[in-house]
């Protein structure tokens, strides 16, 4: 989780990723942030994130992003 929070903070230092649980629904993360984030996640965790995985539920909070990463690692 620490690594993920570090990646998130590098992309959007102005966002409180530990508190905000509606990152996409509230418009805090836009499509550019998500594409940049996906690139970083794929590189860091050696996973493949496709367009199918880009739904708000997977990116609304740091926990949701971590859950996506874990699921894709297990797949």
């Amino acid at each position: 989780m620490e690594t993920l929070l570090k990646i998130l903070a590098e992309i959007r230092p102005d966002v409180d990723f530990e508190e905000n649980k509606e990152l996409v629904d509230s418009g805090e993360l836009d499509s550019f942030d998500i594409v940049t984030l996906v690139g970083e996640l794929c590189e860091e965790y050696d996973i493949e994130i496709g367009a199918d995985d880009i739904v708000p539920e997977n990116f609304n909070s740091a926990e949701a992003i971590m859950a996506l990463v874990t699921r894709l690692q297990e797949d």
Partner: protein
Amino acid sequence: MAFTSMQFVMFLVLAVALYYITPKRYRWVTLLVVNYVFYYFTGIKYFIYLFATTISTYIATIKLGNMIEQNKVAFQAAKAELDRDAKKAWKANFTKRKRRVLIPTLLFNFGILAVLKYSAFVSENLNLLLEKLSAPIELPVFHFLLPLGISFYTFQTMGYLIDVYREKVTPERNIGRLALFISFFPTIVQGPIGRFSALSTQLFVGNDFSYQKAKFGVQLMLWGAFKKLVIADRAGVLVDTVFASYDTYGGTYIAVAALVYCIQLYGDFSGGIDIATGAAQLFGIDLEKNFERPYLATSIPDFWRRWHITLGAWFRDYVFYPLSLSKFFTKVGKKGRQVFGNYIGKLLPVLIPQFIIFFLIGIWHGAEWKYIAFGFYNGTLIVLGILFEQPLQNLVQKLKINTACFSWHLFQILRTLVLVTLGKIITRAPSFGVSVAMMHSMVVQWDTDVLFHGGLLQLGLDVQDLCVLVFACLVLLCVSILQECGIQVRETLAKQNLYFRWVIYLSAVFSLILFGVYGLNYNAADFIYRGF
């Protein structure tokens, strides 16, 4: 049948009555019949395209659904014996098989749209090229009439197809219900472009009559008609006057007309959407939001998040993400980092697809060079905005500008409005060349004095019409600001005293009757986005 015609009002009343007197479980059938009757008014010959989309999508989604079910069973059985690589290979192989169904269906449906909408434009331009090359060939040019709402229902249906392919929704096995989703009459004219996941249950379940929803629906329709008839159509008179003789008007007039065109387009399109949304609410159906006070946006990306939201979301989900996350653009990003450094390299998989999206949004509006130019104009603004975001932030800090105050916010809104207005000139002018000439004129022929010496009265509107337009725009602005502050106008109004509420309702109705633009030469059918 225009949304603002008495014919539509009567049709809607009849449709709503029929819907609610039908037994609950058959209400969706009534709605489907109503949709087809509505579509019939546009011309029976266009049904062929609607049916082609419905049937091809039905066959493809059922096939995909069966494949997905079979794959799930087979994968569960084999899962224990597969290692991670084998699972990946299984998934990749299945994706390939699904694509064999998806891609021909996409090509077929977008092919219909492309042939009807773009073939004349392509043939004409190829002929020009062949003429320049002195080639003795001339391609035939076919001008097709566009079926009502084809750009909207094709996008909505292909969104559903992709959702089935992505296993986000289960395919609808009743072709009648699918036909209902594709042809829902309030949305078929000019959107909003709906998602199956959001609309299907509401359309198929057979809604109970809700007084509250119906009341809000009627209010929204009145508000939409106000925006269309009192604002947009009145503003249109001024805009048409200046744009028809742009060479006789100086830059100041052109700037005024361009700004008024922004108001006209918003009133026209969002007014139409309000009527559609209100009409859907009469059937107990909530449509997706298509506008969020776009002219209060503080940047161009913010504007596009607020303007025609469902089209932007469609391109984001079905084009931008697949492109940006594709293997090709991942490679482009990696290569870019080596060549241009980390910052630009990381941005490339975002910037290039963004440019492509705006090119597509441009040609979605029409088959003309000016729309392509409009797409590039917006794409360029967005790309420049991203590239210069950091340097500009640094500059603002160096200049010690307070960005947490109202004046900065207002500056951002006005700056965005100017950029948006320039973009609108491109789409409204008869050609791209003319729009450049008009912008040039705005720079070199600026004379504010003309506005204070009766100049505004030479633009097709008399004093009374100008006053009505300004007052109506102020009402629209006040409502927009209230909404921007989080106040829900209809809900707040509902809490007021009966007398006050009825004063407001009756004022709205009378303002429509008294100040709506009607008359012999007026054709209420001409919603601008209906033509796209």
